[in-house]
């Protein structure tokens, strides 16, 4: 397992240049998640725009994986309807549980496909999932979670 396959350039790029980082003015839901094993933190907020698209705010401190994952989350779901975002979230969770054997669909996961190598490192999967778990909680809190899938992931 080479370092490059875990830390693909895309991940390092999102880590060093996080997209859309920052908090929202009036979030509908906010969830602060920590990884108690290592102290990584991420705060994810959700709201909707006039067209019903998701607005994402986030902040955090932590390793490249957790912070890049938050940035990718932003990039992937910002502006989407919650139901579309939910499909992406589920695809990302699935990818993380694939033990590195998946062939992720770049159509769905965009830069998220770069996390495929993370799935081989059980201790880092939690890092990658951290913002996505917070996102899910924030949606539930904000009443934005598509009903049928509230317990997945």
């Amino acid at each position, binding site marked *: 397992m080479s370092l490059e396959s875990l830390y693909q350039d895309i991940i390092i790029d999102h880590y060093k240049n996080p997209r859309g980082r920052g908090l929202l003015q009036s979030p509908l839901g906010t969830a602060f998640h*920590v990884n*108690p*094993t*290592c102290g990584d933190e991420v705060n994810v907020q959700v709201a909707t725009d006039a067209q019903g698209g998701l607005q994402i705010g986030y902040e955090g401190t932590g390793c490249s994986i957790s912070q890049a994952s938050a940035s990718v989350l932003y990039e992937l779901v910002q502006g989407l309807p919650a139901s579309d975002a939910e499909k992406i979230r589920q695809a990302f969770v699935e990818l993380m549980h694939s033990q590195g054997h998946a062939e992720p669909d770049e159509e769905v996961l965009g830069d998220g496909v770069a996390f495929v190598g993370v799935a081989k*490192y*059980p*201790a*880092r999967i939690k890092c990658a999932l951290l913002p996505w778990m917070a996102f899910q909680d924030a949606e539930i809190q904000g009443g934005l979670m598509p009903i049928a899938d509230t317990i997945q992931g």
Partner: protein
Amino acid sequence: MSGIDVARIRADFPILKRTVRENKPLVYLDSGATSQKPFSVLDAEREFYETSNAAAHRGAHQLAEEATEAYESARAKIARFVGASPENIVFTKNATESLNLAAYAFSNATALASQGASVDPRFELKPGDSVVVTEMEHHANLVPWQEVCAKTGATLKWIPLTDDGRLDMSGLPDLIDSATKVVSVVHQSNILGTINPVAEIMDMAHAVGAVGVVDGCQSVPHMPVDVREIGADLLAWSGHKMLGPTGIGLLYGTAEILDSMPPFLTGGSMISTVEMERSTYAAAPAKFEAGVPMVAQAVGLGAAVDYLVNLGMQEVAEHELAMTEYSLKAITDLPGVRIIGPLDARNRGSAISFVVDGIHPHDVGQVLDNLGIAVRVGHHCAWPTCRRFAVPATTRISPYIYNDFRDIDAVAEGIVEAQRFFKVAP
């Protein structure tokens, strides 16, 4: 005799080849105290230490990942074994800790509430509330509740026994009432052998809103136990009585109850966030597993579960029944010997306590020991049960999967030998 092949099983247990007391082959009939361990359990533990030892849930390096995986897959095996999910299984050091964990939920919640914290009211005890146990509890399911009562002012009540060693259910509707906050009952008595109708008792507990606890120390190793059938909120048992290593115990809890219980042991790995002045806690089961856990023991216990699953718990239970029937007959056939506990094999396990007229149970045990037969003597950590049957102590055989009828024959001959030696032959 039954579906399991005792001779083949015995070959898996290295200790059964040893001799005791000047070359007597070992007849081990003390599995109620602790069982012996097959090679596969010893090998699994050792292999873990030799290849993957690290602190589980505490690191990101490869060994730590492997240790975490080993630990969690053991949890999953154990959960499956009793029909639960992994999140419902808490690792403790023994059943005693598991039962204390349950009991401390009440005293801790009560103390926290006294300082104004908001706690789940089911766990808050006050004078007038009651805790219900039975008169056949092991000390591990009695003393912790005495202590809870001493700390909160609640009252301890118990289900009395009939003369044939069963629960006297007649008074139950009065005993379990609206003041009852917890009902904690042994599934299979370690001294009497009685198997109790725990599902029925749990239903009565739930009907009055009480928390229901079952001590499964002697049932889980000996018969198929499914938490969904028992219906307990909490089920405690030990690893070392089911072929596993020493130093590991289990507590099953429903998600709902584990969530609402305050933590017990606190420290590393059970927290969510920690500041100097306050902490928040992880979700169960982590909430109840403070400190570096007994990873190697969990791995060994996982192998023990594999061993039992491979035999088939239904087959184990049939063997248990065959041993029970055979032993009951062998012992009742002896003049001057009296069984303390049910005389029929229905709803009864193979642990059988008895007294021999004119010989103290200790002395009976000593004669058997001299013949190479390991049995337990004393009050078996169920002293009030001895009092109930007006005996100071008993001698107890408790067979397991590696015992057969010949072992019971040896006991019967040993008892006769003791009667001869102490000149009390009837």
